[in-house]
Structure formats: structure tokens, C-alpha cells
């Protein structure tokens, strides 16, 4: 790893919905080829921060540097073209379409269906369960399988950076393990991953770096191990003296 | 039966003369006569009302060019009934507020029924374009037709079917509005008397575009002849549909089936259709053809019987006024009753017209067959004298 510059950097980003400000000068950097996890209590602005990066939210102040270039205000299409993929929270599939069609749509902005075919095949190879169900409607998949499908769909665009928001939500522990294993696998292939996760312990366990957000600001940042052992983290989540008990 | 050809030639010749010699504006000394023209200028009746209005306007121009009515100039004011009785009542009220000499229009019988009350109360003559049978049966002394009513036009059709065609099984298709319903009821009554057997009685909608089901039903009833009482466009759609599905039995109907508009729209599908009409635009008479040409030149559309009716309404006013010797709005209706109008003295009347006591008129008619897109007269009915 020769290039040590961050793949993505947020500099004092301010933004929100309408009159409501959620991000109050949020700054952090995302290391190349690593998993960086953002944690923080509810309402800290984690998901908002992802939307700001992906051009889904008006950023009022600050800069968002992708490999050194400001991409503030860039459209999702432009970001996808520059190798960024976003897997949002919740269910984001075309539930009426088949698994294969969902995968094919992952690259619809990038090339013809024919050009996407090898990539779709590669995705199906990576996730055997999806190959089994390639012809089924996406809505018939279990929650975990749907999340895998979303990740697989994101990979069709061959991203260098994946933004993934709360992948473990609503999944069984076994499924969470599989999703996380997928993510580490991707990291090992050199993909940078920025993840928001509630399930802080297990997320930090597979992460290289961690960032703690609170009230739209970066409160702590460090290696995953440092953050995991920081007593202030529990206090941020539960308030009072929770951390002392932990 | 012997309609004087000389009279016709004379009439139309005069008319042509007037048309040619009209540019010089007559100098009117007497006060103008206000003519109110309520018509269906918008809404579903627009295609009918606009032609009526244009016919009225053309006649007024012709009359004025010839020096007006006893030296009085005719001045028309148009009113749009929007094909809506409540609006019609409003505009007639407005027209009456201006104390018109006569009201010419409207055409739709619903509107006429509303207006009758008002013109009667104001003692103003209303000459309208409606054909529904009941318009002149209500004892209103101020309302007049401009053409034959259904009570006059249906019997010749029944007779033609019974005697000429020797048909026994009749299928009928009619449009479910005041016009079609009236024609259908009149036909049913007459057909019964003539011993015709109605094997299919098909109601259709105004503006109906698809007649496939009707045609299939008609075919399934195996009629000897078909009676058609539809508006022009619907008649054309029906004829096209029927020909397309290979219906070959004789088709007979009212004025609309042999109307030029129907012929234009139906194209070859109209061939062989027989219809009875009061004054038809296709009547092979110089006066009528001259009217048709001039109308087309002026308004860039082909006239239909409504245009003729509107045209004649003005000449009816002129004839009655001249009979009185002076314009008298309240006496106009009385002067019209029983009046016999001859084209010789009133060239715009086109054919001799007898105004009956109830406000109906009898100006004769034609049994017409369509051949190669042209009307051919089979039989001419003389007006009763």
C-alpha cells in the first residue's frame, strides 16, 4: 500500500433537511483499502452524513474530497462513475423484479446489459445463495439475502469505495456474520469501505478505523481498537455513568 | 308532383343575380330590425349550431343587399347557448331584454323547450331548427319550425320500406337523445301501422365511436332493411362499420344519412343508402346548389340542412313582414300562420313553403339515394297546400 492519502475526506460539512441542520461541521477521513466504521447515538447524523457524501442532500458548508477532488454537489450518477457505491439503510431493492434483474440494474447507468453480464455472473459467483435464487422475485428473499443482494448489486459498478449504512439492522446474528465476512473480503481485495453501524462491537471488530459522531460533529476518531476500549463511547450511547458499569 | 321547374330556375336565377349584384351597400332609411340568433355555438351541439348561425347570417346579408325588409335593415346578434338549457334560457332572456324583432334559433329541442316559454310570454316569434315531434304540439303560437318535423319525415320512410322495398323485418338503430328518441318513437308507431316487424331496436350514444357490437347484433337479427336515425358522424361511423362487416341489406333513414357530411365521412360506405329529407343540400336544383356553393365559398365548410334551415328562417321573417306591410314584432307570428311562401317572391325560401297553423312547416321533401357520393332523387314530395 503505497498510497496513504485518504480516499475520502470530509471537511467541516454543514447540512440538513430544510430548516433543520443535522451536520454541524462534520470532519473525518476515510483510509484507503480499509474498513472505517461510523458509530454514534441515534440522531447523531450518521445516515445524513452518508447522504451528504452521495449527493442526496444539500451541503451548505464545507468540502467533500474524493481522492483529493471536491465532489460536493456531484450527482449520484457522477459518483458512481467515479467508483463510489452507496448501500443505504433498510430495503432498497426493486422488489417486483428478479434477483438477476436487480443485479443487472446495478450497472444500468454504466453500460449495456450485455456489458454487465460478466459482472453479474461474477456477483452471482460470489454469492451462491443469490445464484440459487437468481430467477426469484427479490421480495421472496429473506432479509439477510436481500441485504446481500443489495451489496452484490452495488459491486456491479466495481466501486473503489462503498458506503454502507446499518447493514446489520433486522438481520439474524448468523446473517450479520455473513455480511461482515463479505465486507472484510471486499476490503482484502482493496476496496475501501465506510460503514455506519449500531452494532458497534461486532462492527468495530472487523473495522480498521472508527469515528464517533454526536450531534452532527466528530467526537472521537481512531483505530477501531482504541474506540472499542474507550469508556466514553458507552457514555455517549447511554448517557450518565453507563460506561463505568461496562 | 310537378314542381315547376321554371319557378325553380327563376328563383335560383334571381338569387344568383342578387349574389352577384350585392356589393353596393343599400341605404336604409327605416330603423333596423334586431334579429336575435341563439345557437349552440359551443358544447356538444356546436357542429349543428354554428351552421345554423352561418345560414342565418348569410340570409341576412342577402336580404340586406337587396334593400332589407321593407327598407329596414336586419341586424343579427348571436348568443351562445353552450348546448345547455339553463344557459339557453339566460341568453334568450338577454335577447328578449333587447326587444328583438324575432328570435331565430336554437336547434336543440331541450333549449327550444326552455326558450318557448319566454318568447311566448314576450310575444316574440321564435323560428327554430328543432325537429323533435313535441315542439309544436304544446299549443305555443309563437314557435315555428324551419323544416319538416318528425311527424312529417318518418311516414314517407316507413312507406318506402313497406312498399318499395317490400321489407318485413326491420332492424333499427337510433341515437339516444331527443332527436333520435323522437324519430324512433315515431317510426315504431308508423311501422306498426304498416305491418313492419322490428326485429332489432338498437340504442346508441351521442358521440359513440364504436359501432361494431351494434353491427354484429344487427347482422344476427337478419333484417330485410335497416332504419337509421343517427346524427351525421355517428351515421357515418355506423355505415362504415356495417359495410366493413359485410352488411348488404338496404339502409334507410332520416335526413342525416343522406347528408353531405355523412357522405363525406362515410365515403363509399354511404352508397346505396336511402333517406328522406326536407330540403337537402344535395337536392339537384339550381337554387339549392347555388346556395351550397355560395355557403362553401363564404364559410369554407360544406353546409348541411341546418344551414339551409337557418337561411330560410330569415326569409320566413321577411315574407311574413312583407305580408303585414310593416314590421310588427307581435303580429309576426300571426302573419306566419297559414302563410304560403313562394320562391318567386322570396327567392331564399328555395322551395315553396307552407306554414301550418301549429307552427310546423311543409316545404315538401325528397326521397334520396346516395350513389357514388352524390344524392340522387328517387321521389319528390310536394308540400301540402
Amino acid at each position, binding site marked *: 500500500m503505497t498510497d496513504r492519502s485518504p480516499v475520502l475526506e470530509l471537511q467541516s460539512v454543514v447540512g440538513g433537511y430544510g430548516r433543520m441542520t443535522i451536520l454541524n461541521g462534520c470532519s473525518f477521513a476515510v483510509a484507503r483499502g480499509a474498513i472505517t466504521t461510523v458509530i454514534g447515538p441515534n440522531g447523531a447524523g450518521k445516515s445524513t452524513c452518508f447522504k451528504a457524501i452521495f449527493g442526496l442532500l444539500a451541503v451548505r458548508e464545507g468540502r467533500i474530497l474524493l481522492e483529493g477532488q471536491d465532489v460536493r454537489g456531484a450527482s449520484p450518477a457522477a459518483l458512481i462513475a467515479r467508483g463510489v457505491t*452507496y448501500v443505504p439503510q433498510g430495503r432498497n431493492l426493486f422488489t417486483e423484479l428478479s434477483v438477476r434483474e436487480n443485479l443487472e440494474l446495478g450497472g444500468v447507468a*454504466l453500460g449495456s446489459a450485455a456489458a454487465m453480464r460478466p459482472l453479474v455472473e461474477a456477483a452471482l459467483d460470489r454469492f451462491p445463495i443469490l445464484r440459487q435464487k437468481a430467477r426469484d422475485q427479490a421480495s421472496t428473499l429473506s432479509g439477510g439475502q436481500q441485504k446481500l443482494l443489495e451489496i452484490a448489486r452495488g459491486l456491479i459498478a466495481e466501486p473503489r469505495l462503498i458506503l454502507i449504512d446499518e447493514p446489520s439492522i433486522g438481520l439474524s446474528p448468523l446473517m450479520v456474520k455473513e455480511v461482515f465476512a463479505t465486507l472484510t473480503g471486499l476490503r482484502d481485495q482493496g476496496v475501501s469501505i465506510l460503514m455506519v453501524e449500531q452494532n458497534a462491537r461486532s462492527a468495530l471488530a472487523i473495522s480498521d478505523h472508527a469515528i464517533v459522531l454526536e450531534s452532527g460533529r466528530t467526537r472521537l476518531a481512531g483505530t477501531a481498537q482504541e474506540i472499542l476500549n474507550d469508556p466514553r463511547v458507552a457514555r455517549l450511547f447511554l448517557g450518565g455513568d453507563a460506561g463505568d458499569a461496562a | 308532383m310537378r314542381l315547376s321547374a321554371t319557378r325553380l330556375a327563376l328563383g335560383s336565377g334571381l338569387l344568383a343575380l342578387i349574389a352577384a349584384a350585392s356589393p353596393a351597400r343599400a341605404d336604409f332609411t327605416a330603423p333596423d330590425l334586431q334579429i336575435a340568433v341563439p345557437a349552440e355555438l359551443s358544447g356538444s351541439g356546436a*357542429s349543428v349550431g354554428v351552421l345554423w348561425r352561418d345560414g342565418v347570417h348569410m340570409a341576412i346579408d342577402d336580404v340586406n343587399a337587396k334593400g332589407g325588409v321593407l327598407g329596414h335593415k336586419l341586424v343579427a346578434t348571436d348568443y351562445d347557448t353552450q348546448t345547455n338549457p339553463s344557459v339557453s334560457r339566460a341568453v334568450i332572456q338577454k335577447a328578449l331584454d333587447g326587444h328583438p324583432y324575432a328570435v331565430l334559433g336554437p336547434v336543440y329541442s331541450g333549449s327550444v323547450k326552455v326558450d318557448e316559454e319566454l318568447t311566448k310570454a314576450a310575444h316574440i316569434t321564435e323560428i327554430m331548427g328543432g325537429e323533435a315531434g313535441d315542439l309544436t304540439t304544446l299549443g305555443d303560437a309563437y314557435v315555428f319550425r324551419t323544416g319538416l318535423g318528425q311527424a312529417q319525415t318518418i311516414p314517407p320512410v316507413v312507406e318506402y320500406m313497406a312498399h318499395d322495398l317490400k321489407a318485413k323485418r326491420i332492424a333499427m338503430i337510433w341515437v339516444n337523445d331527443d332527436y333520435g328518441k323522437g324519430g324512433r318513437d315515431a317510426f315504431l308507431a308508423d311501422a306498426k301501422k304498416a305491418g313492419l316487424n322490428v326485429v332489432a331496436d338498437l*340504442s346508441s350514444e351521442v358521440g359513440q365511436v364504436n359501432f361494431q*357490437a351494434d353491427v354484429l347484433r344487427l347482422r344476427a337479427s337478419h333484417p330485410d332493411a335497416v332504419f337509421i336515425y343517427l346524427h351525421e*358522424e355517428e351515421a357515418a361511423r355506423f355505415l362504415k362499420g356495417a359495410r366493413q362487416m359485410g352488411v348488404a341489406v338496404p339502409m334507410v333513414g332520416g335526413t342525416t344519412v343522406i347528408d353531405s357530411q355523412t357522405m363525406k365521412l362515410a365515403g*363509399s360506405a354511404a352508397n346505396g343508402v336511402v333517406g328522406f329529407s326536407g330540403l337537402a343540400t344535395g337536392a339537384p336544383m339550381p337554387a339549392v346548389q347555388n346556395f351550397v356553393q355560395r355557403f362553401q365559398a363564404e364559410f369554407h365548410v360544406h353546409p348541411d340542412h341546418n344551414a339551409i334551415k337557418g337561411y330560410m328562417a330569415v326569409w320566413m321573417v321577411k315574407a311574413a313582414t312583407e305580408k303585414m306591410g310593416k314590421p310588427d314584432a307581435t303580429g309576426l307570428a300571426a302573419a306566419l300562420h297559414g302563410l304560403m311562401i313562394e320562391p318567386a317572391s322570396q327567392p331564399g325560401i328555395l322551395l315553396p313553403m307552407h306554414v301550418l297553423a301549429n307552427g310546423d312547416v311543409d316545404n315538401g321533401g325528397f326521397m334520396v339515394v346516395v350513389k357514388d357520393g352524390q344524392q340522387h332523387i328517387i321521389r319528390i314530395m310536394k308540400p301540402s297546400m
Partner: protein
Amino acid sequence: MAALLAQLLLTGLATGAIYALVAIGFSLLWQGSQVVNFAQGDFVTLPAFVMLGVMGYGLPLWVAMPVALLVSLLVLGVLFRRVLVQPMLRHGVMPLVIATMALSIFMENAMKNVASAEAYPFPGLSGGIDLGPLFLDWQSAVTLLSAVLAVLALHLFLSRTRTGRAIQATAQNPAVARLLGINVDRMILITFLINAALVTLAAVLISPAYLVKFNNGEAIGLTAFCAAIIGGFNQVRGAVAGGLLLGVTETFAATFGPDQYRAAVPMVLLIVFVLFRPQGLLGRREERRV
């Protein structure tokens, strides 16, 4: 009897195929940008008049057709979206619905003023072929065939091409489509253009039988509406199914039912479907959030 039923079915399908064409456009607009287009019927009349206008200069139908298509794409596609739909959408769905009602009044009266209230003939095919008990007329045959081909072509376009798939993705879930880098705005515009093309085709196919008249759209629009809802408002194949079902039902009802109430048939079907199966024949339920 069997021959009559077969004939009715054939006739009903030919009628229904037209309904389907207009209904597809209708539901595409709904999927694309929540437009319930009350002027859809008038959208069919406009290209018919354009073609008549072009042919009025002595040009043949095959020249008039592309001209009408071009005008449709421009006026009923681009202009309709830019001038009416986009500025209105921010006010919500209902003002837009009412605006399309006003648009219908506008178009009908404008066409009446320009072309007069007369009906005009339109060139079509005459004659047919006698197949024993069945009679197949060329116009119906061509209508049915063209409609089937158009639906097939549309289906292939939507399912096989990149753009078509992007349109489908946009219709299904615009938010996710955007995440996948689809230019949602452009896809919506394309659905408007497809609608414009479909109504132009419908105009070519129905005008010979229906004639061209300023207010023809009322009947066509209402029926297409019913077809779209009966089939499933949010589904292209639903609109096809709804159109065919309605065409066949109407033909059968007009043949065997009380004909004075024939206009009630689509309405009763509509009410029954809206009340008891609002998602339509093939549609999916619109998601409701608590």
C-alpha cells in the same frame, strides 16, 4: 352461436387493443410522475388533426405520420411535461389532476376553433376477409396487429434495453433508481415521449373508424382510464389486460345487455374494481405508510 361469440371476441379484442394503447400511456405517466392525465383522450385527437392538416397540403399519410409523431413528441411529451406537469407537481397530485381537466377543456376547444366542430374522415382500410362464419375486416386486423406489435416493441424496449430498464427502475422506485446513478429526470421525460408516441399510433389506428372530431377524446379518454384502472394502474401489462378485458366486455355487453345502459359497463367495472380490487387485475398494491 359459437361463430357469433368468436366474432364478438375478435371485435372486442380489436377494440380493446386501442384502449390498451391509450391506457398504457396513461399508466406510464402515472408511474413516471404521478400524473393522472384527464386529457389523455384529447392527446389522441391532436395527432389525428395534425395528420389531417398535413394531408390537407396534398401529402400522403406516410408523410403525415412522422410529422404528427414529431409534433406529439414535442407538444404532448416535452411541452406537456415542462409547462404543465413540472411546475404543478410541487403543489401535490390533486391540483395537477384538476389542471389536466382544464387542459382537456383547453385542447378540445382549441381544436374546435382551429378545425371547426365538424368531424373529418380519415383514410383507412376497407374490405376484409370472410373466414367462413367469421368476418375479419382489414382495418380491425391491422389495428390488432399494430397494437400487438407496439405493445411487444414497448415490452422489449422496457425489458431489454438499457434505457428501458432504467425507465422500469425509475417507475418502480425512483429513489433507488437515483442511487443507482439513473438520470431519473430523463427517464421520466422518456415515459412522456413514449406516451406521445403511443397516442399518435392510436390516432392512426382509430381515426378511420372513429373519424376525427374535436371532442372524440372524451369517450376514448374515459375508456382508457377505466382500462388502466381495471388492469392495474401501475403496470404496463395491466393496462394491456384491462384494455382487452374492457373491449371484450363492452362488445359482449352491447350485444347481450340492455343497450341503453351500455355506457354503464366500463363505469360499473371501474367501481367494482376500485372498491374490491383497487390494485387492478395485475397490479401491485400501492404501498401505504402508516
